């Protein structure tokens, strides 16, 4: 977490230079399906290419979810164990509306401009707006509980709240709507958005979602409001004394994180074409927590790394260790928490300065030969 503070230094690097890593990542991800297609020779929508697109879609969505969780716990210092409520809330809102409301709406009120039928687009926009609103409501609900409770008590209450939602969504009384234990399956989607028929579209949408979320969150944490949120984590009493209301800014970060989590949930239910109770359970929160810890709390790139690693691990560990893979993963996780407590990106940033010094020291013998004073100046 320590690195955030250092980053408040006025950024003199150009935007392209400071975002170089992420821009390369975007380019690689954009090229990936086509390159894999060239290598394997199979079509874009079949075989290995299709399989890996699917893996990457999950990675993109989970990365956004993990980033939004990191906004809460890493930047805001709010230990909430109920973040899956937003994720599942988004997924269920999307699936419920698409399944129970959209078909009738499409049948009864076709919207046509010129010769093109835009009913589907309007429906999707309305549903996404609903997801947006539900996420805001869930965020507010958690923020309200944080007004009086602190620390462990607050964490426990968020856990209880999200579990309550999980139980409601699982209850058999709501079977005809939510499908209870089995969840909602077979969410009707237009052909162009169907991940089995048109995986590339979903792949590109998920990638765009990740890119957009990353830049929005990045702007948020470097805005005046974001800085207040970070300072709130450090010292709430002092914030109050210099004239900020911590509750206001906690609410803002809650709602902000909740919106991204909700949209990620909706996208996940597009990818699965279903919404299941697991998406709302503590397991989902803990998964995101693991991703954040592996990648590094208080960084935005970190959770992306964490999501990628946990996705890869899940994939390969299953083939290597069979059903016992969580045990191995658990041991690995303990190892990470003990020896790399700041996560990959956090640890890297903490040592980046020392690495630079080391590099300079290694290069120095070569530049010493000139013995020119300017050389000394630039390297020092």
């Amino acid at each position, binding site marked *: *977490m*320590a690195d*955030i*503070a*250092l980053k*408040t*230094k*006025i*950024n003199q690097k150009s935007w392209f230079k400071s975002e170089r890593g992420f821009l390369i990542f975007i380019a690689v991800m954009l090229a990936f399906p086509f390159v894999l297609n060239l290598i394997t020779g199979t079509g874009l929508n079949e075989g290995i290419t299709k399989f890996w697109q699917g893996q990457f879609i999950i990675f993109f969505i989970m990365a956004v979810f993990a980033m939004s969780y990191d906004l809460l716990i890493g930047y805001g210092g709010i230990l909430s164990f109920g973040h899956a409520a937003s994720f599942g809330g988004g997924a269920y809102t999307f699936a419920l509306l698409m399944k129970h409301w959209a078909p009738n709406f499409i049948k009864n009120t076709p919207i046509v401009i010129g010769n093109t039928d835009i009913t589907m687009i309007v429906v999707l926009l309305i549903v996404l707006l609903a997801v947006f609103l539900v996420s805001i409501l869930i965020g507010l609900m958690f923020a309200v509980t944080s007004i009086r409770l602190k620390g462990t008590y607050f964490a426990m209450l968020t856990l209880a709240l999200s579990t309550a939602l999980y139980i409601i969504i699982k209850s058999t009384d709501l079977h005809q709507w939510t499908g209870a234990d089995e969840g909602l399956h077979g969410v009707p989607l237009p052909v162009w958005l169907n991940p089995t028929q048109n995986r590339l579209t979903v792949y590109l949408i998920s990638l765009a979602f990740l890119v957009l979320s990353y830049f*929005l969150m990045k*702007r*948020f944490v*470097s*805005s*005046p*409001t*974001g*800085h*207040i949120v*970070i*300072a709130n984590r*450090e*010292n709430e*009493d*002092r*914030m*109050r*004394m*210099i*004239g*900020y*209301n911590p509750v206001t800014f906690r609410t803002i970060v809650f709602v*902000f994180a909740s919106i991204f989590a909700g949209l990620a949930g909706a996208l996940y239910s597009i990818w699965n074409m279903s919404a299941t109770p697991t998406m709302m359970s503590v397991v989902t929160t803990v998964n995101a927590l693991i991703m954040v810890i592996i990648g590094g709390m208080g960084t935005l790139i970190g959770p992306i790394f964490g999501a990628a690693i946990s996705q890869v691990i899940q994939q390969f560990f299953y083939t290597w260790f069979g059903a016992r893979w969580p045990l191995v993963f658990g041991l690995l996780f303990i190892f990470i928490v003990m020896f790399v407590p700041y996560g990959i990106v956090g640890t890297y940033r903490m040592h980046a300065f020392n690495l630079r010094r080391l590099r300079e020291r290694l290069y120095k013998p070569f530049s010493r030969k000139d013995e020119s004073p300017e050389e000394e100046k630039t390297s020092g």
Partner: protein
Amino acid sequence: MTDNVLVEVENLRKAFGGLIAVYDVSMQVKVHSMHAIIGPNGAGKTTLFNLISGVMPPTNGKVFFKGQDITNVSPQKRAHLGIGRSYQITNIFPNLTVLENVRLAAQALGKDNFKFFQPVEKFTQYIEKAEEVITIVGLAGREWVLARNLSHGEKRKLELGIMIACDPELLLFDEPTAGMSSEQVPELIEIIHQVVRRYDRTAILVEHRMDMVMSISDVITVMNQGRILAEGSPHEIANNDQVQAAYLGDLYGELA
């Protein structure tokens, strides 16, 4: 109430269970004055500060600021009204840089707290303000150091800087020199003096160093066991028998 009174405290009482920390205290602080509160440990000085700055609600009594009753106003709103406070136990943002610590305080009362998607660097007025305050408190050149890596003396200066950056009309100094060595004290006094006199502010100062209190304050209030023992100019206080008894007599009396 007269016009030149900035803060008035009326029959203020704070009880923690059976212990009455502040016992029906009434006092007035005049505009542009340097008002010192002294007293032995446990006299209720910091509790009185907490009541004026709104950290805790009083059990009884009222607090007025500029003639307005602020007894039930939250600390953050008091900050907006113009009350700033520094802490006896250093209370800063340890994992943020010095500049960010002060910049946040400068930003607090501005109108840009809800700009979600614009970079902080765009709001140069706060950065300039912070740089100015950092120079005043003598931390120039240390802007990019993390606050937790500062020395104790520097942390005390930062503590003052955070308060000053809010530009309050009333500055509450809670033992600004706590834990500092004697060599560092004059520098800190100079900072306090400069801020209060040059910018025409009002200050209430809790302090243990008598030499410092005597030299810079206009009015001194002596507290003992939650009550006001005496009030007057430094000269009057120095010659007050009761005060001497509280500070010297009792102590030696107990020892004897």
